[in-house]
Structures are given as structure tokens and as C-alpha cells.
């Protein structure tokens, strides 16, 4: 996280936020398990095979899915290919620079990718055109346009929403266009610790103040499909238990409300 990008938070502001959070209130008035206003607009880029513009508070990302025929990996000849890429566009934040993916964008991309892959959301076995030779290759490209914290969840929601509405362009090869085969809906929820209080969906100020972070992705069955602890601090086992519950509960709401 770019701690000092906008100038480090002033000590006064910090102690104010700390005091508030101990009383259960967050800077913007949210409760600990409350996520920011979420807006998802699918099919924002008709030229893509699937797309979604996501606004999570003031964080804004755009996901485009491109699907084309290609070769399978040698070790999985009967599965479609799936790749996830995150671009931290320099427009999104004063210190983001153009260039190859860095540590931060790679971590976000891999955590989003893992949640989708491990939940078996997309039925890759149905994405084979000619076994061992030709399969559908699904590219998920995530562009971060405006950064105000919690890229993990914003990018994950965008990828899931774009995939759920994505079309396999079979007509390009003499077949029919079909929806991408989807099995279930993974939802990721990211939780940070602010002075021992755990809150979900941190904005940038909270990210800068937090000591540690965990992203937990669950599916409809309440099972955990992917986790990623990050940042310098630690969690007690009990705190992880609490985080899993928070992710599962909040995740259910988000799934129902935005990712049907």
C-alpha cells in the first residue's frame, strides 16, 4: 500500500480515527462489517465479450473479458485457459506508474484469480473445442481507474460480474454464441485490523492505518475457497475465525444483492 502517497496521515487524524473506531464508528460512519456503496454496471464495453464497471465507494475499476480460441496448456489438455491481469493505471493514483506489473498488482491479480479458480466458478471442462488442441482462452483484464482502497474486493466483484455475463463467441468459428458456463459465485471480502478492531472493505485511509489485512473468498455453501493474509502485522487464530465469519456473512449479502 502506498502509505505516504498523499502525505502520511497526520497524527491528529490518526488518533481521531483510532478513538472513533474503538467506539465502533468508522471515519465515514460505517459499522465494522459494513461495506461502502457498491455499484456494478455490466456490459459497459460491448466490444469485449464481457465487462463490468465497479464503483466501491470512491474506488473505481473496469473489467473486460476477452474470449478467443487458443491452445491448452500441455498439462491440462482438456481444460480451457484462464488468466487474470490487473493494471494499476497511472490515472488512478498519483504514485502509480505505467510499466510492467509490480508486486501490488500481481498480488491483487493472483488473489482474484485464485478465488475464481478455486471456487470452480467457471466450468473449464466445457471450454474445450478440440481436446488437446484447441480450447477457449479467457482473458480477464482489470483496469484500476480510481483508487481509494480495497482493490482486492472491487476487482474480484468486477471479474465475477463480467464473467457471469460473458459470451463465448462460438459464432466466430461457425458455431453459436453461448454464455460462459458458470457453476457458482465466489465472493471475496477483505478485512483489516484497525487497532485491534476488525473492519471490512477498508478505504484508503483505513488501509494506511491498518496493521494487517486478510482477504477471504467464500462460496454459496459457506466454504472457504481462497485466503490471503497480507501486510506486516499478525492475526490471532481467534481473529481469523471472526474474519471468516465476517466474510461469509457479508459475502452472502453481496452475492444476493449484486452478483445474482
Amino acid at each position, binding site marked *: 500500500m502506498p502509505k505516504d502517497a498523499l502525505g502520511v496521515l497526520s497524527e491528529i487524524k490518526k488518533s481521531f480515527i483510532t478513538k472513533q473506531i474503538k467506539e465502533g464508528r468508522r471515519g465515514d460512519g460505517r459499522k465494522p462489517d459494513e461495506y461502502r456503496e457498491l455499484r456494478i454496471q455490466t456490459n459497459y464495453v460491448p466490444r469485449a465479450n464481457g465487462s463490468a464497471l465497479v464503483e466501491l465507494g470512491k474506488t473505481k475499476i473496469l473489467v473486460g473479458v476477452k474470449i478467443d480460441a487458443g491452445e491448452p496448456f500441455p498439462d491440462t489438455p482438456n481444460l480451457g485457459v484462464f488468466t487474470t491481469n490487473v493494471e494499476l*493505471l497511472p490515472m488512478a493514483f498519483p504514485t502509480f506508474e505505467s510499466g510492467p506489473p509490480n508486486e501490488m498488482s500481481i498480488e491483487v491479480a493472483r488473489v482474484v484469480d485464485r478465488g475464481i479458480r478455486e471456487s470452480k466458478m467457471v466450468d473449464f471442462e466445457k471450454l474445450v473445442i478440440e481436446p488437446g488442441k484447441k480450447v477457449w482462452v479467457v482473458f480477464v*483484464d482489470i483496469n484500476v*481507474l480510481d483508487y481509494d482502497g480495497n482493490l482486492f474486493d472491487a476487482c474480484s466483484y468486477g471479474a465475477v460480474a463480467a464473467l457471469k455475463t460473458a459470451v463465448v463467441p462460438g459464432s466466430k468459428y461457425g458455431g453459436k454464441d453461448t454464455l460462459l458456463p458458470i457453476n457458482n459465485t465466489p465472493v471475496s471480502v477483505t478485512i483489516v485490523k484497525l487497532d485491534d478492531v476488525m473492519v471490512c472493505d477498508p478505504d484508503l485511509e483505513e488501509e494506511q492505518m491498518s496493521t494487517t489485512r486478510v482477504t477471504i473468498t467464500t462460496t454459496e455453501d459457506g466454504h472457504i475457497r481462497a485466503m490471503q493474509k497480507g501486510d506486516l502485522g499478525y492475526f490471532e487464530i481467534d481473529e481469523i475465525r471472526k474474519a471468516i465469519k465476517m466474510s461469509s456473512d457479508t459475502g452472502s449479502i453481496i452475492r444476493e444483492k449484486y452478483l445474482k
Partner: protein
Amino acid sequence: MGTASDIKLIDENNIRLDGRGPDELRPIKIETNVLNRADGSSFIEWGGNKIMVAVYGPREAYPKHNQDINKAIVKARYNMAAFSVDERKRPGPDRRSVEISKVVSEALEAAIMVELFPRAQIDVFIEVLQADAGTRIAGLTAASVAVAAAGIPMRDMVVGCTAGKVGNKIVLDLSKEEDNFGQADLPMGILPKSDRVVLMQMDGDLSVEEFEQATSMIMKATKRIAQIQREALTKKYEIQQKEQGE
């Protein structure tokens, strides 16, 4: 320019494939302040183009040895999203986007009062989210609005517009098919107050007379586009004033 094709791009009644007349623009819509983090921003829809622009600065130029002691440097970066075109584009700059970034930077710098900000840098990030022919001039048009929205003083706006040749006729604002199968393409960047040309590229085949015709078409369209820019900015100021009024 000029890949052979049997498509008839314009008919005997001068009606183009998408129904437009020769000197008709595609629909254009500009919004400002669409991003929170940037100092100024804009979003343009021009035909099927969707382009977002963010401006940061003036801020200290970095690395220091790039600083100009007499003025700000303007660095535009034109970039296409991987999913913005039919075939997925690999992220990162290619030779085409390096060239476009250069000529767009130069066109903007001609309009910005760079002499007010020695040693500074003004970054203009142009992200093409969906491409549909004419991205460079749509991006330039939106960039000019975003610079103004960032409160950076300009001598004039910059308006981008294209004319071209299809079916041996000069037409305004090429569509994707016209761009792919047409005979010439002339993108220009104009300062509308003075009709000065700050960006011009051309490829294809134009006689001198055709060039005259194309230029005059562009010059007229420029006024209309400048009006759309002004309205986008006025709307912004209205909102700001209301907010201050509350």
C-alpha cells in the same frame, strides 16, 4: 489505409454506411470530473469510442534532470485497454501508442500556458476503454477538457477532428469501416479561437484540392465540438457553484 474491400462505404446519394451525410459527426458526449483522485478528469463518448482522461499536475517534474527551468513539460500517455479492440491487445505501450502520445503531448503543450509553471510536469493519462476509430482525436478533445477541469490555464482549448476520403469523396469523422477500408485519413488538432493547427497527421492519398476540402470540413466541425467542450465545462462549474452555495 486502403485495404481493398468490396464494401460500398458511401452511396450515390452521399449517404454513408451508418446513415450519416459527408459532413456529419458521430454523436459526442463529454463529462468532467468523473474521477476522484485526479486533479482533473473527463470522459468522452464519441461514436463507439469510450475514453477516460485524468490530469495530474502541475507537479514537480521527475526525474529532476528532465525539468525545464523555463516552463512545465506536458506528458500525455495514450493507452488502449486490452479489451478495447476486437483482438485482445497486450497491455503496455506499442510503437503506435508511443507516437500518438508524442503528438498529443505536443498539441496540448501548444495550448497550455506552460511558461507559468517552470520545473513542473503536467501528466495527462488518456485511457481508451473502447475503441471505434478516431481515438487519438477523441482522446485529444477530452484531454483538453480534463486539463481545463484541473484548473490549468490554457490559451485556448484543443479540438480534435478527422476528415478522410472514402469512395473518392471527402467525409468528416471516419467510422471504423471507413477507417479500415477508406482511401485517406487526416486527423487534426485545432485551437478553435485562432484556427491554428497543433496536431496533423495524414496517410493515404489526397490531392491538394481534396486536402483543402477536408481541411475546411474539419474547421467547421471544430466550432461544434468546441461548443460541446464548453458545455461540459460549464456544467461542471454550475455544479461547483451549487455546492459552494449550499
